[in-house]
Structures are given as C-alpha cells and as structure tokens.
C-alpha cells in the first residue's frame, strides 16, 4: 500500500477547527466542545476514520435535522444498578459521555451498572468511553449497533452493522483499550481505500450483485464480509441485540438510513457496562495482577519478523503521545473535504 498523503497540525489548532465547524453546522457551544473532544482523540490516536473524517456525516445529519445540534442528553431513569439516558436526538459523543459517566457513578454505588443510551446517534470511537471507565478504575464495556453494511455468513446482502464492541481494563500502567468492529473491515477502512483507489484484499466484501470484489467503492454499494466468517457474524448479531432491542432500540433495517444521504433514520442506541473490581477483591491487587498478565503476554516469544507484541490500546496511546509532541496527522483527502464543508459553512480553514 502506498503511503497516503497527510497534513500535520498542532492538536489545539485541530480542536479549534473542529469546534468551529460543529458550531457553524448547528451545534450548541457545549455540544461542539464535547463532541470535538471525543473526535480529536480519535485523530490523535491514529484512528482518523473516527476523527475529522467522520464529522462529515454529522454535518449532513445536522443539515437534514436528523440530529438536533442543541439537544442535550439527560438521565431519564435510574434503578439500583441501571440507568437510561435519552439522547433527545442530539449529537452522539456528548450523550455517550453522559452515559459513560452515569455508568461509572452507578457502578461505584452498586458494584456494576448497565446504562442504555436511546434516541442517540453515532458515538464515534467506542474505545474512548471504555478508556474513560478504565481511567476511573472500572472495567468498562460498550456495544454499538450501526447501520447495515455487513452481510451475514452464508449471505451476500447487507443485514448487519459493523457493530463494534469495546472493553477497557485498568492496569498498573496505561489501561487496556480494546475496540473492534465485528466486520472484516470497518466502514471507514473501506471508505479510505475508496478515497485512494486502493484495492482491498480478497474476501473482504461483495458488490451490489453479491459478487466478490476487491474494489472498495463497489463494496460500499454492496456489503462488507463479517470478521472471520461465522464467528464475526455471531458476534455482530449479539452486539446488535445487546445495544439495540435490549435497550428498547432498533437493529437492522430500521436504522439503515444512517449510511444513506436521504431517507428515514430511526434513532440509534448503545449499551455501556461498568464493573467495579472492588466488588470482587482488592482493586490494587487487581490492577497489579492485570499488569502482570499484560507483561507476561508482551514477553512471549515473538514470531519471526515481529519486533514486539502489543496489547490492545498500546499502539493508540503511543501514537497519542506522538501527536501531542509532533502534531496530529490528518489525511490530505479528509482535509480537502473538510475545507469544502468549511467554505460552505463560512468557517476559516487553519493555515
């Protein structure tokens, strides 16, 4: 794969640009600030597909009114170890932060907590929220049903979302942050390949006629394969059921519109689970044991040609440190598209 051209800029400049874009597109100051925080963290971690590039879909949704830029999420119900957060169809990231912080609060009271976020939108980098729980000392899990793009095992028609799941675990050092799509490739990986006319590996998807293809733009009209065949398919289905129907929300066709420029969109929903290690024993001992296991995994003999074994989240946090020191990399292509939006919205593009 040839290197994709990138632009590098200081994090504060990118953050300010994101906030101004979001405000101009219709977000309140507080929603723009909170959403930019989550979205910037994706770019800083080298997850550009959940960063600035992903904001374009929010601009379209704000313009059509499928997202209300002024709406603030609120906790509408609480039980002993559960809570329900209503996103009121506002931007996803601020609502998801509220749901995450509610899960942390409830889990500290009850030992564990499950929080549902309903009437929401896309929440971007799912790992952000579980990392937040892990940094609060809790084990965190998040499950997100997304619009259909993925075919089931044995089928060739999109029926499932890329349905990511994430797990965050505190250790004695940086937390473990595991964040995966249950599809062979995430939506944005396919989109980025399409930007650059790069062929995808075989077996990653089919075109709209159901024929296997390596052409990313044809896969975007067709369907992406599930991760590892029936295993990713099963995982995807379970993530959908946990975050859609279980929370009183939707999965499948009802939310298909989130990948389309027009048409109906039922609101999205997500599930956040936090567990307090103190319920089961000494939390310091837990962190030490978790760290010892990470060290054991990292010290395993490497396969030929491999320089190091990395644990989930290690690379992303290393990249974040680099971004803070040397600036954040954004794809040129993403930057160009953002500039087009900026012009339309009357926002100055940073030099």
């Amino acid at each position: 794969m040839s290197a994709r051209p990138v632009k590098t800029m200081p994090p504060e400049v990118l953050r300010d640009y994101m906030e101004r874009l979001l405000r101009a597109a219709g977000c309140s100051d507080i929603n723009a600030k909170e959403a930019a925080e989550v979205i910037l963290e994706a770019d800083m971690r080298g997850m550009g597909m959940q960063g600035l590039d992903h904001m374009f879909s929010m601009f379209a949704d704000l313009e059509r009114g499928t997202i209300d830029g002024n709406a603030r999420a609120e906790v509408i119900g609480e039980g002993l170890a559960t809570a329900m957060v209503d996103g009121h169809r506002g931007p996803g990231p601020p609502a998801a932060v509220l749901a995450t912080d509610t899960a942390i609060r409830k889990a500290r009271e009850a030992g564990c907590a499950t929080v549902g976020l309903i009437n929401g939108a896309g929440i971007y980098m799912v790992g952000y929220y579980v990392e937040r729980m892990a940094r609060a000392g809790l084990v965190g899990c998040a499950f997100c049903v997304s619009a259909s793009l993925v075919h089931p095992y044995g089928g060739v028609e999109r029926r499932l979302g890329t349905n990511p799941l994430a797990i965050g675990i505190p250790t004695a050092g940086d937390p473990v942050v595991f964040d995966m799509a249950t599809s062979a490739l995430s939506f944005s990986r396919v989109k980025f390949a399409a930007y650059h006319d790069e062929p995808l590996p075989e077996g990653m998807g089919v075109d709209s006629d159901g024929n296997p293809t390596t052409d990313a733009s044809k896969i975007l009209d067709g369907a992406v394969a599930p991760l590892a065949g029936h295993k990713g398919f099963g995982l995807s289905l379970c993530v959908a059921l946990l975050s859609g129907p279980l929370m009183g929300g939707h999965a499948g066709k009802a939310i298909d519109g989130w990948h389309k420029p027009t048409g109906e969109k039922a609101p999205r929903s997500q599930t956040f689970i936090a567990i307090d290690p103190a319920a089961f024993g000494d939390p310091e001992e837990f962190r030490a044991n978790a760290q010892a296991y990470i060290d054991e995994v990292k010290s395993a003999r490497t396969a030929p040609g491999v320089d190091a074994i990395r644990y989930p989240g290690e690379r992303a946090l290393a990249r974040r440190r680099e971004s803070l020191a040397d600036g954040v990399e954004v794809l040129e292509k993403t930057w160009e598209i953002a500039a087009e939006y900026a012009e339309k919205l009357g926002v100055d593009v940073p030099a």
Partner: protein
Amino acid sequence: MAAMEFPPRGRPTRRIDPAALRALMLGLLRAVGCPQDIAEIAAEVHWEADLRGHHIQGLDHMTELVGNIRAGRIDPEGRPELVRDGPAWAQISGHNGLGHPAGLLAAATAVEKAGGAGVAVIGVKDSADIFLVGYYAEMIARAGFAAVVTTNVPPHVHPFGGAEAVLGTNPIAFAFPTAGADPVIFDMATSVVAASHIRQAAYDGSPIPEGIGVGPDGRPSTDPKIVEKGSIGSMAGHRGSGLALCLGLLSGPLVGAATGKALDSWLGRDVPHKGLGHFLLAVDPGIFGDVDTFRAAVEAHLGEIRGARRAEGMEHVLVPGDRLFETRARSLAEGVTMYENVWREAAKLASTLGVEMPA
C-alpha cells in the same frame, strides 16, 4: 477456496443410544469419586453438548476431566459456595470442585440478582472448566434475560505476533430470549479453532491445515501432536488476540482467579496449582423497555438476517443456534452421532476405570 477443510468432514461416526451415553458419562464420573448429584450435573452438560452436535465439549472431554480428578487438580466432592455478594453482583468459590456445579450456581445467582437489580455480574474463582459456555448462557436466557458468559482456559494460544502460549482459547457465549420457544445462542472460542479440534486430530495423527499452530519451538507445524505441545493462533489475528486477552482478565484477575501461565498446572506442568475463573453477566430487558417489544425486535432482526440473499452454493442463511435444537431432537429420536475416534478413546478410559461400555 482450496484450503483444507478443518475440522474435516466425513469422519467415521456411529450412533449411540442417548440414555446409554448419559449412563456412561455418569458411570465414568462416579468411578472417580463424584457424588451422585455432582456427577449428574456434570454429565448433563457433556450430554447436552453431544446431543447438540457440539462434540468437542461432549464425551470427548471425559478423559481430561477424569485425569484432572485423578491428578488431584479437581476435588470430586468440592461444592461451590457464594462467598460475597451485593444486590447486583456475587462472587462464588468453586472450592476446587468440578466447574459444572459452580457454573450452574453462578447462572442461577445471575438470574436471581438480575431479577432484583436489572443487571448482575457473577464472578467464579477456584473453579475448573465449565465446558459448554453456551449452556449457562442459555439458562439465563430461558429465565428471560440477556446473557454473556466467558471463562479463562489454560494457555493454548499465542498472541498476535507471538509464538508462545500465553492466552487461553477463552470462549464467550451470548444468549437472548426470542419471541419463539428457544433462545438464540452464540458460543465461540477466540482462537482460530478450538483446542479440542487439535486433540481430536491427534487421536488419528491426521495433519491439520497450515497456519493454525506452531510447535513448542515456535515453528509452524501441521502435526497435531506437535501443535498440542505448542500453541495455536487467534481468531482473525490481532482482534481475536485482543479479545482473548480481555476475556482472560475479566474471568481471571477481575473475579479473583488467575490467568495465563499461572494456569499451566492444568497442562500437567509442575507449577503451583491455581483454579480457573468464570464471568457471567445477565441483563433484564424489562428494565429498559417493554419485554414483548424486545422479544419481537429480536425476532424481527433474526428474520431479516435469515431473509438475506444467499451466497452461491449456500442453502440457507442461518443465525446462531438455528440448527441446535433440531439436532438435539434428532439425537434424542435417532441416537447421538459420535466420532469413532472419540468413542475409541472413551472405551480406553472406561476400561481403565472398570466401567462397562454400552453395546
């Protein structure tokens, strides 16, 4: 794809009378000192596995289970006990007994706690293998709750980029109530294949496909006997590897159990013995909305998926668990399918214990 099919199809099988199979399992467990009630609970899990066609968790595991009891790693009379709890969580000690009763108590506790608090996390420590993780998830789903069950397993798997076993095959199961009679149940190992497939290939010395495992020296091998001593890869590279690591922490250190090489005594290595751990989560759909609406929405999504256009050469698009209860009914009516090599291994075990094999 020209790749070799694994596990291979068309292996020789026989049909076993279901009642006779259950009696055999019970007899084997009784012969090594399990009290009747514990033996019945354990036999039930393995019997259900074979009935469902999930043969890697069935009779085939008796040799290992009996071996662990005889080696003193499992106390056949050990009984699980709830050691501490809150309204939405509980910690259970398996007291080094069989894993099955501990798993069963954990599932029942999950149902009870989730019924009160809306959600429950149950951790089990000082336990042994619970085998069919979907069995316990199914119990929770049949009580009306969404379920997630996972467990740590002694290390058979190398991490992504590694060539040494430090991860378990750490399986995870999910189960959900549906609008129909049976729940949807999904149960997978996070390794490229379950370790039991390697063991079964080793019975006959049949080669396994390239790219699944390495020997103890870290070199790729297609010899199951060498790979058994080495390690296998993760499902889907770094993603399965990361998932296995997280599940090992959830069902290990989080619940007060060990994980990784600390579990090597289970592989016959001379290290201090540590029990296995399990993690169960139950969530009440009634807390977040109307239960009937939930069940209907689950059913609708399953229906959409089954209705997808099929890939060439595929007869159906199935959702996890679709064939499971059909297979179970057929096994009960027509006899349980059993691989000849598994049956042969069981016969060897039965003979050493003086247990009679069914005709």
